[in-house]
Every structure is written in C-alpha cells, then in structure tokens.
C-alpha cells in the first residue's frame, strides 16, 4: 500500500441511515478499509439520522433535535468520516445555522464542521492514501453526486481511488455533472420529473461499456440501481466503498 | 409631469427603506466610484489616453480581429481613394440606389458624395434631404462615422447628436462605418470612463449605441441567426491616418 502515514489516526464513523438500515455491507466495508489504511475506528453509539430529510422538507425544528444529538455525541471525535456526500454536507454546512446566535449548540456545531469528512475526501486528503490494495477487474463509470461535487468540490478523490484499483478501467460518464433526479423527497413528490431525469442518467451509463456504476452516495445509487434493476439491466450499482473493500482472494492451489 | 396614478416618490422610497431596515441617508459604506473628484476622473482619462496612444497599432489589429468575430466586414485603408473604391464596390455588388449618410465632420475630409453621385445613387444626408428624392427609411445603405470604437468587443460607438441621427445606422439593410484610428479605445472601461467624464463636464448625456456587428436573433430553437430588424450586413473601414 503506497503513501501510508505511519501513525494511528483515530476516527469516528458517522454511519448514515441508508448504510445502517439498508446497506450494512457498506458500513462493514467502511470499517475494513479504514482499518487497512491504519485508522483506529470508533462508532459513537448514540448517533442518529443527520436530519437532512427533515431539513430539506422544511422541518427545521425537528431536524434541529436530531442535529443536537449528533453534535453532542460527536463532540469529542477528532475526525468524523461519513460514507455519504449529502450527510457530510449537512453536518459541514447546515448544522451551525440551525441554532440561534446565543445557543451554545451553535458554537459546538461550528467546532464539529471542520472535523467532518466524506469518506473519499478523508482517505485521500487526510491520510494521503489513494491505493488501498483493492481489486475489481471490470469497467466502471463514476457518477458524482451533487452535494459532493458542488458543495464540497470533492471529485478527483473518488476518481483517484478508483484509478488505483487493480484491474479497474475507469470510463468517463458523459454529462456526469447532471443531477440523477433523486433530490430526497423530490423523488417521491415529483416522481414523473425524477424518473425523466433518471432515464437520461441511465442512458448515459448504458452508453459507456461499464459493468458497474459507482457513486459515493447511496441515495443516488438506490435511485439509479432501482431503475437498472427494474429494466433487468446487467449493470451493477455499487458504493465506492464496496469496490475498495474488494480484494481478490488467491486462487486455490 | 403630473401623473395622478403611481405612488409619490417619498412614499415609495419610504417603503423600500422600511423593507431594508434603513434610515434615510447615504449608503452604509462609501462607494468609491461615486466619491471620486472630477480631477481624479480627468487624471484617469489622461492616463487611459496615454496608454491607448502607445498601443494604437496593436489596437487596430485587435479591433479588426474582434470586429470580425462578431460579424463585421473589416478593412484597414490608408487613404480616401481606398474608401471610395470600397464604397464603389459595395454599391455595385448590391446594386444599391439609395444611400443615406450622417452629416458628421469626417465627411468634410473624406468626401464621398461625388463618388455616390457618380455611381448614380440617390444620396440623402442625414434626415434632411438635399434632394428630396426618397423616404430616408428606404435607404439601402447607411454610412456613418464613429464617435469611438472598442477594440475589446469589436464595436463601433455612435452618439446621437446634431448631424448624426439614430436611424441612419439602423434602417438600411447595410451599414458602413468609417472609423478613424484616433477614435479607437481599448476596453469597455475606457468608453465608460470617457462617457462619464463627458457627462460630468457639463455636456448632456446623449443617446449612445455600441454596434457590434449585424442584427441577430436567437429566438427560434436557440439558434443564433444574422438579420433581424437592424442591418443584415455591417462594414467597418478603419482609416489608418490621423
């Protein structure tokens, strides 16, 4: 493994609802990859949903209660690693403004914000690692999620990580920056528009020769995967962590 | 004018102030441009003029380039004879019969009337008709000078004033502008600086148009095509002498 720093970094993981509830393998993969990269991983148990679904729906007061719980639980962590661009953005940019000027939570949220990193951002920028010893002998195309690309300018990091996966051929996705159409509750409030945007994204994916589409957000992936499965497409949709957690086992002798 | 409709100024401004939570008075922070003295603006203009003068030859090349990019036909000429030749060719090519020109100073030194009469074109000067032969709006070719030209954008600047009507460069389907090298400026900053100084020097603000090529429209299928209400063809002759 190249470019590993030789000290133990301690990081907490903020697991996110989608990983915890629906895609636990991404969670175990996250822990595994971080450990491989020399990180001592902790999982503060009292964490909960980041609150974004509520915030985006206009229910800031309810979102605030969830934010408070997370801010308090993560206050002592040195780094918080998040396997989701949108949840990371929520904690980085929105948490502080949920609280009034005189609320002590506001300054706690301010202190939390610089410690929050999306997964690929953490591995590449903080650990300085781009090769985690993974193998994935297939053609892959990468879909940049909006919150990660635009709000956090994290784009070369996931691509750099994918580039170093043994056997992986990374193909550029045409119109990659166009939103997939998920947008949270938008996907069920305006399913027609959401679907129309999704079909464009699927078309672009199918125009590559990739067997797998990769993203850093399970929300986008669920949406894209949902359509791929519905049309019985052979194309797989995987989280970046699932690719990076993939090691080739040695052939049996 | 007394208009019984509408909101009185003070009432309107009061409601704007209320929305902003402001009290009546100047802005909270000073706006540098609006706090300059006239002498500062004059000084800046002088500096600009020196810079422009040093770069004049480059600016002619640049103007040619940018003007062509926006659809002007551009030619640099060295004397009046060349101007006349160009006009003659233009008249022949398009079989033009009716020409209108402004009554700007440039036509005192670059005499084109004889050339036009020789070509048997009907000529009208500005909106007066020396020979009331045609409705100015039916002129096929409009010839103007240029108060300024902007190398950055490829534009001719026309200021409406005595002898130079707004419509002369608008109604004909072909517009020819004679641009003396002395009027060429470098950038948008320059033209606005010059205009600003004119305004403050007691001259009245006058209708000013930057003409950057022929008229266009992009209203159908987002495709830009040439030829809408203004001229379909524009020609710029850069007169490379002082």
């Amino acid at each position, binding site marked *: 493994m190249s470019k590993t720093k030789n000290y133990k970094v301690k990081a907490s993981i903020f697991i996110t609802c989608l990983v*915890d509830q629906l895609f636990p393998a991404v969670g175990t993969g996250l822990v595994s990859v971080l450990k491989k990269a020399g990180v001592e991983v902790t999982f503060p148990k009292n964490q909960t949903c980041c609150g974004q679904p509520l915030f985006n729906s206009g229910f800031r007061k309810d979102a605030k209660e969830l934010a408070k719980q997370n801010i308090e639980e993560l206050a002592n962590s040195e780094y918080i690693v998040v396997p989701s661009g949108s949840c990371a953005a929520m904690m980085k940019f929105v948490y502080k403004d949920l609280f009034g000027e005189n609320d002590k939570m506001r300054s706690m949220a301010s202190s939390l914000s610089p410690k929050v990193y999306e997964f690929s951002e953490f591995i590449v920028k903080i650990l300085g690692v781009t090769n985690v010893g993974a193998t994935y002998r297939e053609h892959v195309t990468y879909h940049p999620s909006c919150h990660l690309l635009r709000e956090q300018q994290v784009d070369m990091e996931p691509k750099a990580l994918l580039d170093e996966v043994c056997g992986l051929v990374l193909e550029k996705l045409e119109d990659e920056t166009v939103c997939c159409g998920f947008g949270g509750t938008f996907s069920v409030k305006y399913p027609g528009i959401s679907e129309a945007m999704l079909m464009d994204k699927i078309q672009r994916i199918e125009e590559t020769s990739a067997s797998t589409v990769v993203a850093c957000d399970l929300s986008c992936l669920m949406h894209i995967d949902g359509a791929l499965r519905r049309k019985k497409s052979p194309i797989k949709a995987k989280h970046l962590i699932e690719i990076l957690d993939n090691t080739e086992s040695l052939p049996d002798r | 004018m007394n208009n019984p*409709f509408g909101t009185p100024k003070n009432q309107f401004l009061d409601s704007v102030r209320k929305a902003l939570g402001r009290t009546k008075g100047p802005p909270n922070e000073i706006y540098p441009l609006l706090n300059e003295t006239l002498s500062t603006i004059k000084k800046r203009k002088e500096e600009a003029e020196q810079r422009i003068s040093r770069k004049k030859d480059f600016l002619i090349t640049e103007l040619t380039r940018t003007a062509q990019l926006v659809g002007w036909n551009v030619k640099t000429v060295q004397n009046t004879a060349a101007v006349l030749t160009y006009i003659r060719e233009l008249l022949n090519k398009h079989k033009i019969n009716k020409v209108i020109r402004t009554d700007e100073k440039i036509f005192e030194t670059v005499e084109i009337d004889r050339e036009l009469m020789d070509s048997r074109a009907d000529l009208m000067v500005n909106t007066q008709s020396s020979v009331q032969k045609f409705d100015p709006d039916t002129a096929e070719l409009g010839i103007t000078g240029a108060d300024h030209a902007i190398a950055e954008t490829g534009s001719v600047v026309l200021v409406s004033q005595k002898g130079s009507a707004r419509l002369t460069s608008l109604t004909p389907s072909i517009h020819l502008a004679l641009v003396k090298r002395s009027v060429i400026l470098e950038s948008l900053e320059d033209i*606005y600086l010059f205009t600003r100084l004119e305004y403050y020097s007691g001259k009245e603000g006058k209708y000013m148009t930057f003409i950057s090529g022929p008229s266009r429209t992009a209203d159908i*299928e987002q495709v830009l095509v040439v030829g809408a209400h203004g001229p379909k063809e524009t020609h710029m002759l850069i007169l490379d002498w002082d």
Partner: protein
Amino acid sequence: MAEINTDQFPQASAKALNNQQLQEYLTRSMGNFDSARKQAIEDVSQEIWEGLREKARQIKKHTIENLDYYLDLLYENVTRSGGFVHFATTDGQARDIIGHISKNRGLTKAIKSKSMVSEEVGLNKYLESVGVEPIETDLGEYIIQLVDETPFHIIAPALHKTRQQVGEIFAEKLNRPGLNTIEDMAGTAREILRDKLLSADLGITGANFLVAETGSVVLVTNEGNGRFCTSKPNVHIALVGMEKLIPSIEDLSVFIRLLPKAATGQRITSYTTHVFGPKTLSEEDGPDEFHLIIVDNGRSKLLEDPVLREALYCIRCGACLNTCPIYRKVGGHSYGWVYPGPIGAVVTPIMTGLKKGKDLPFASSLCGACRDVCPLKIDIPHMLLNMRSKLMEGTSDQRKRGVTEKLASFAYKKLMINVGALSIFRYIAYLLQKPFIRNGYLGKTSIPILKNWTNSRDLPGIPKKRFSQIWEEDQFKEQQ
C-alpha cells in the same frame, strides 16, 4: 397582473412530461444556449469569469442594500435630463400610469421591445382596452403574440416552438407559407414589422440596467427593435423593475461582459443602447418625451427578507433555466407565471403568493447547477430551502402544509431519537416486506407510501440486521 397559475405546477409539469414531441424537441435544443455559454466562458478563461462574477455580486449587493438611496439618485438624474420618473407599487398603478401618458398624447400604436415587467403587469390586454394597439417586435414575443401564448423562457419566449411550428404559424397567421429556414422567418418578420416600427407613436421597452449616476436606461439587445423603440416614436416609456439599478456608469463594464455570455454565449450582443432621457435639442431624432416607470409589484417582499434579498441581484440572463435539469424537462409554461426555472421558483411565489405557489420551492432536486452558472452567484437552493421552511413552519400567513406532512416529520424524528422504537418498527417492516421481496428487491407496488417510488424503480429490501447490530456483535466477538 398576468394570470397566476402557480398552483397548476403538478398538472402542468405532468402534461409537459407526457408531451412526446415537446420532450424530443427540448432534449435537442435546450443544450444550445448552455453549450454556447460554456464556450464563451472558456474563451475568456474561468479565472476572469470568476473575477467578474465576484465583482458583479459585490456591486449588486451594495446597490440592493442601499436601494432607496440609488433610486433617489436615479430619480434626480432622469428628471434633470428632462425625463419623467413614476413609481408603481402595484401592477395596476403601472398600467394606469401608461394609460394616462397615452391619453395625454393621444397615442394609439405602441411598439414594444422585450419587457418581462410588461408581462407581469398584463400590459398588452390593458393597452388594447384603452385603444392603444400593442405590437410585439421582438421575434420571440411576436411569435407568441400571434398565437396568444405566454413566454416559455426569460430570453427566448418562443423557445417551445420548433422551426416547423413557427413556419406553420407564419403560414396560418400571416399568410406566408413555405418558410423553412430560421433566416427566412426572421427576414419575413423584419419585413412585416418594418412599417409598424416606423409608424408607431409610442415605444415601450424594459431595461437591462438602470444607472443611478447618470439616469440612464441600458438595453442589451440583438435584433434592433430596441433601437427602433427608442428612436422613432415621439414617446418612449421604459417599464423597469426597481432592482435593475447599478450605481455608476463605469460599473457597466462588468455587467456588459457578463450578461451576453451567460445568456446566449455571445461575446457581446449586436447592440448595447444607452438612453439618457428624451432627445436633446441638438439631436436629429429620438423621442421628445421620456418616461421611466419604476415597478415594485412584489419585489419589496423579496427585499425585506435578508435571505431572499439576493434574488434581486438577478440580471435575467436565463442561464439557470438553460442548465436546470428540471426546467429542461418541464419547460417554462409549467411554472404558471412570467418567471420560470430556478429563479422563477424563488421570485414567483414570493411576488404572487407563497401559499398558491407552494409547489414551486419543492420542484427542485437542489442539485445546485443553477448556483454554479449564475453570473451573480445567487444561491437559489439556499433560498428554496428557506421557502420550504416558511411553508412548513412559518407564520400563519406563510404556512401551507398537510397534516400528514407534519405528522410524518414528527414520527420520523421520534423514531430516529428512540432506538428501541426504531428497532421494533424496523423489525415489523422487515417481516411484512418478506413475502414481497424478490432477489432482494421490492417491485412495483400499490402500497401508499411506496407507490410513488416503485412506479419506475425497484426498492431494496430491508436486511435482517442493521450495521449497528453487526458492529455490536463484532465488538462482542473481539472481546471474547
């Protein structure tokens, strides 16, 4: 006021999505302005572009924060030049002012250059009612006037018409059949409108910028009709939103560099016209009477909210429309009023009624592409989120939410805080879904909560164990 159909967004957008022809056409043409804009930015360099954006934003911020001061300065300078300034708080006042001016001079024929504000106040119908013939001369506006439709796009009102459709309109309404190319159609419009451009007694324009320092109205145009409207008729009325102000004429260089590139990808438009009041005595032609009507019509509602205030920085370039993946699917008519697309989703509900327009702030995936392309860096997603919170939790005259929505938010929050309750809920859901899961997925279903998703997408099934459980078990194993 122009008809407000903002509450029709769900139906109108569904209709647009089902219009096969419109969808094919939008896919084909919507990218043109967007690519042109990108190219124009590349030509000057990203660095220069970013510098311009920042400068422009600072200028606009200062102006809007001190709008009353600059409006006063503008008033002074327009008046000094011999022009008249009127203030219209409502659309009705704007119409009445114009009616009064027309009556005063006995005007009967008005040529109009593009003005979105004139759409806002429903000017054309009003003019007809007071005996003034309104003639749209901007090609796109002219086309939609022929078929009595509303604008589809801020700068290209007839964008929803293919060239074939325009050809058909010209054949039917103008008795000019056989026009196939866009050049031909533009040429025909030129020919037909030339008479009217020269014989009208009133010219009505909007303005792209108002310069406080010199009392100037600035028009950024391509077609030349704006020049006609400000040159031939004896009376010129500029009908302008109060937010169009900038302090100094020297500030124009920043905006003239930004607007054409962001709007149509041009280095500069064919004409940049600067009006300094009515014609002076020494000028050969031009209007002898000039009126500037400064319009509020709901803009002060944007002004009074510090978060929404930056919507007034908008210079109406249309870049956000061109890049918005939602606008590119549903088109301008779905938004139900004069301003569509991302900026429309903000200003339309605030100016015409938040409750009636309650669907618009939610009709966005918050992707942020609009914010990225906006020459003034306006943070549209931030404002949409603010409007959503007003609708769900605002004061009684802002709030418009369903009981189920509030209940759902409450229930979600409670479950997320209470791990025990969440586990039970999850386990029940896990058991209930089991019979319906095939290969790990739930297919199309008519179960109420899941219906909208599964109509077009499979839904992953709930696995037996949560990550947190697995972690606990692993920790326990490690300690053994």
